[in-house]
């Protein structure tokens, strides 16, 4: 039997995860104008930072989130200032920037593989399960949804009410004009890279808590994250929210549909791919622009 309520809850969980994971990607993509494929590893780093607190029972989940955020923010900031900023200053081509980001991804991923091994691990955490009518929801999911909503609200006020937030939008829409008006571009970009990586790391902690950890954790959800970045429109945070909701619904209803017509549920990823191709064919600018 198909329980619509349960699917809606599952969709909301998926959307929240993608939203947290995608925010930094779309903002840095909009500012720096190239996709950072090493972004997958920012997510993974968060998940493995969580292990410091959650490898044994009785750890504090909140501490894992905070540590993941801080470490990934540091990695994000240093990867921008050590790798990408020097490349941008040398007027490196777009393809070279993407190759560099993939190379950085391998450096980070295999460092994680060296440090923690390639075998899957899991957090020692038990989450209480609540049943509301037919619908099953865990405390982890509630925290995840609340975090995503909170992040969205905070970011909304940040982008519209603060000078730095306005500067981010200004640079994304017209970098030259922004420079002329005296915005410190480098400071704003660096801040966005570290903040975005931090949010991605939090998504990684949630993903690891909900499933398992492996050095491929981030890479495995990179495709849906790129799909919502494109669907929402590169650089648009509001577009991303709508896109994350759409993909969350599409994936969870899609999975039910897939098993209904006898196809493997492994095709979950293919749904994101179809959306990605659809966006490129019909509306490459995405929803928001």
């Amino acid at each position: 039997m198909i329980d619509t309520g349960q699917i809606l809850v599952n969709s909301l969980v998926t959307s929240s995860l993608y939203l947290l994971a995608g925010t930094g990607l779309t903002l840095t993509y909009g500012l720096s104008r190239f996709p950072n494929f090493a972004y997958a590893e920012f997510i993974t780093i968060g998940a493995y930072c969580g292990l410091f607190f959650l490898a044994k029972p009785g750890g504090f989940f909140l501490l894992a989130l905070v540590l993941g955020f801080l470490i990934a923010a540091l990695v994000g900031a240093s990867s921008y200032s050590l790798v990408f900023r020097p490349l941008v200053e040398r007027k490196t081509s777009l393809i070279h920037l993407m190759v560099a980001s993939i190379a950085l991804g391998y450096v980070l991923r295999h460092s994680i593989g060296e440090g923690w091994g390639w075998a899957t691990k899991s957090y020692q955490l038990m989450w209480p399960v609540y049943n509301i009518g037919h619908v099953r929801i865990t405390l982890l999911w509630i925290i995840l949804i609340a975090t995503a909503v909170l992040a969205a609200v905070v970011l909304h006020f940040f982008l519209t009410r603060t000078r730095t937030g306005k500067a981010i939008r200004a640079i994304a829409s017209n970098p030259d004009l922004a420079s002329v008006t005296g915005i410190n571009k480098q400071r704003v970009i660096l801040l966005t890279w570290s903040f975005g990586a931090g949010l991605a790391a939090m998504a990684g902690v949630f993903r690891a808590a909900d499933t398992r950890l492996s050095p491929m954790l981030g890479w495995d959800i990179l495709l849906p994250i790129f799909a919502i970045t494109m669907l929402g429109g590169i650089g648009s945070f509001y577009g991303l929210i709508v896109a994350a909701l759409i993909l969350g619904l599409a994936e969870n209803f899609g999975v039910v549909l897939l098993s209904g017509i006898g196809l493997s549920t492994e095709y979950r990823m293919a749904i994101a791919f179809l959306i990605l191709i659809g966006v490129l064919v019909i509306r490459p600018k995405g929803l928001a622009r």
Partner: protein
Amino acid sequence: MYLLDTLVFMGIFALLSMSLNVEYGYTGLGNFGKVAFFMAGAYAYAVTAALGWPVYLSLVMAALIAGALGAVVSLPALRLREDYLAIVTLSFGEILRIFVKAEQWLAGGVWGKTVPSAFAGLGLSPKTMAWANVLLVWAILAGVFLFLHLLMNTPYGRVLRGIREDDVAVQVLGKSLVSYKAQALMVGSAIAGVAGGLFAQYIRFIDPYMFLPLVTFLVWVMLILGGPANHWGALIGALIVEFFNRGSRIVKDYIALPFDPHNVQFVLFGLLIIFLLLYRPYGLFREKPMRTGAEVEVSKWQSSP
């Protein structure tokens, strides 16, 4: 045997590196899903060879299927900026792997598929068989090398380079960008497909886990190290990288180290790429100037008194 085995793999990877050279080196297209077309070729070979097709037909099929996929998959992204193509090809690499895993009837899914060797039934000893494989792979590599070398010095090759340097100028000359880009990806993917077919028949068993994005990354390391838009660069880059790639595996098997050489190798490759892009983006070998009929005429004029 280790040496012969390494030679076969070097040849296969050199084919991949030269195929990326057509797309990226000459035409300026970033294909980040090379492994997908390699995989398509390998499975096309495996399926057709299992049906009893002769070797050359299976290889042609591998080239056709991979080539067709290369053109079709990239079409939605070709009118857009380079990053769209990168994301689409990279995603396609993931999707094709999922497809093969899920569709067990096609080629065994996660359990893989055995592939008949090209030299089965000839009663060759393992050593002779290895030599036969080296000859087969390197003969095809030599053919591809020559073909690409000639192709890139024709007017057609100049259009491809033109797209890389200045696509507006090419459009002004009345050439269709999308059509040429799709053709470049078709040629590149077809070569990758042949490499996949050769790979499948050589190792005689394939499963989806052999076709991870790692392969794509290795091919990029080869080309960036060797030098884009230079056939010798693509070849030498493949030889060097595959030498280290094999070497790290042998070291892993025979020497106890406090770290995993496989991990360290990829960390070093990653750092190498970043370093090269910062300080030597043209790699070991630079692109040579084009040879045209006009150039020959000019040199005649210059040398005559």
